[in-house]
């Protein structure tokens, strides 16, 4: 049995939330630099702003983007892990509370969707927990902004739908998202499962490194084809034209019902922020 104290969890969540919000992922910074080298005019100058922005944010430990998001958390907890001193969800929320206060991050959560009053500490986080085999506790953290989240979509296809029609839906989501979603994007796609699980898959896909491929060759190929098609739309950085509309398309799949084929497209902006804690 592996004992993990709630104080350790809160401490690590706090640290990861602050770091994710202020220090850009190295693979994203590299993607920005690579994109800048192939762009000209406005697209080039926008990418230069984004690169400078991430340098300032890291140097001053201030948020890369003012929308420091809703804290999305994916937990993979080994069945031989024992949480001591309290409860897992409370420990995560305590870490979020401390991070958003101590890190001068924006508190963007309202306690009720219709009767909107700010909770003033960015809690509650949205937590998905899977129990897995073993003694490890893995906590994946993603502060997710509303600009890109609001432009995400899900659709039920007929099981006989063509791959082309699914491609069209994904590309259409990127285009309708336009400048609102803050391209260049990472496009997370969840295919299969059911309505809720497809979107979970799409969101979890943001934790993959840019340049990584789906393990199944046909999906790796589809990722490549989609990225190429999305970048050929010409939407470009900030929707103002250019060759770089997305840095990556990440597809994740899951078994599904004989009558179903859900496809979820979760968009994430050029400030995709993730951190993974292993305890």
């Amino acid at each position, binding site marked *: 049995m592996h004992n993990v104290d709630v104080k350790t969890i809160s401490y690590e969540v706090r640290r990861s939330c602050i770091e994710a919000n202020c220090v850009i992922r190295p693979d994203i910074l590299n993607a920005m630099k690579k994109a800048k080298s192939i762009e000209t005019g406005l697209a080039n100058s926008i990418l230069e702003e984004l690169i*400078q*922005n991430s340098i300032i944010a890291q140097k001053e430990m201030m*948020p890369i983007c003012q929308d420091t998001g809703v804290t999305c958390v994916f937990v993979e907890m080994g069945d031989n892990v024992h949480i001591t001193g309290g409860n897992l969800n409370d420990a995560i929320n305590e870490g979020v509370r401390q991070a958003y206060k101590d890190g*001068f991050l924006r508190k963007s959560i309202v306690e009720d969707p219709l009767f909107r009053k700010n909770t003033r500490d960015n809690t509650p986080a949205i937590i998905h927990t899977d129990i897995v085999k073993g003694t490890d506790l893995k906590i994946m953290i993603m502060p997710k902004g509303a600009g890109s989240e609001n432009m995400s979509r899900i659709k039920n296809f007929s099981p006989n739908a063509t791959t082309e029609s699914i491609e069209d839906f994904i590309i259409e989501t990127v285009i309708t998202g336009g400048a*609102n979603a803050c391209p260049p994007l990472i496009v997370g796609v969840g295919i299969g499962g059911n309505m809720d699980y497809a979107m979970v898959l799409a969101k979890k896909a943001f934790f993959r490194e840019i340049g990584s491929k789906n393990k199944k060759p046909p999906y790796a190929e589809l990722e490549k084809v989609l990225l190429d098609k999305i970048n050929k739309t010409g939407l470009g950085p900030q929707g103002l034209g250019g060759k770089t509309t997305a840095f990556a398309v990440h597809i994740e799949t899951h078994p599904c019902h004989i009558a179903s084929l859900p496809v979820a497209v979760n968009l994430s902006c050029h400030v995709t922020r993730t951190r993974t804690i292993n305890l």
Partner: protein
Amino acid sequence: MKTIKITTPITKETVKSLKAGDRVFISGTIYTARDTAHKRIFELIANKEKLPFELEGAVIYYVGPSPAKPGQVIGSAGPTTSSRMDSFTPILLEKGLKGMIGKGKRSPDVIKAIKKYKAVYFAATGGAAALLAKTVKDSDLIAFFELGTEAIYKLEVKDFPAIVINDMYGNDLYEKVGGSKLWKI
């Protein structure tokens, strides 16, 4: 790409000189206002009450900054999605608002009002929030304190970088770039 330095409040001549696609650097006073602040201003206008700032020639920045650290003028401060303010915008333009800074497309009604009342809509780079914060030299909370990040702040900016999206001639930069046909789906 034309680069122009402009100062606020924005005059008729300045509006006249700006075209979709121009790169501008804005200096002077701008006011922050997003969702709830817009709703409140809208209500004040409907009730014929005094507004927190003079709209004539003013520029509104759609932003909800992150909190300032000790020693900082403002926290990170990039633009939010403008379309959420669309339903409140035409009346503000009618009352003299001349400039808006945000990101993303505006509604046909807003674009019509920009043309009618001769104003301009700028986009700043979404997500460049730390960089944009560096152009803010002073910040004063002037209204709706209880709204926190959504309160109205009077900002003094120096060379705030933006791009003209909608000009008084009816041009829309987002319409000109690739993908714009699909955008309308």
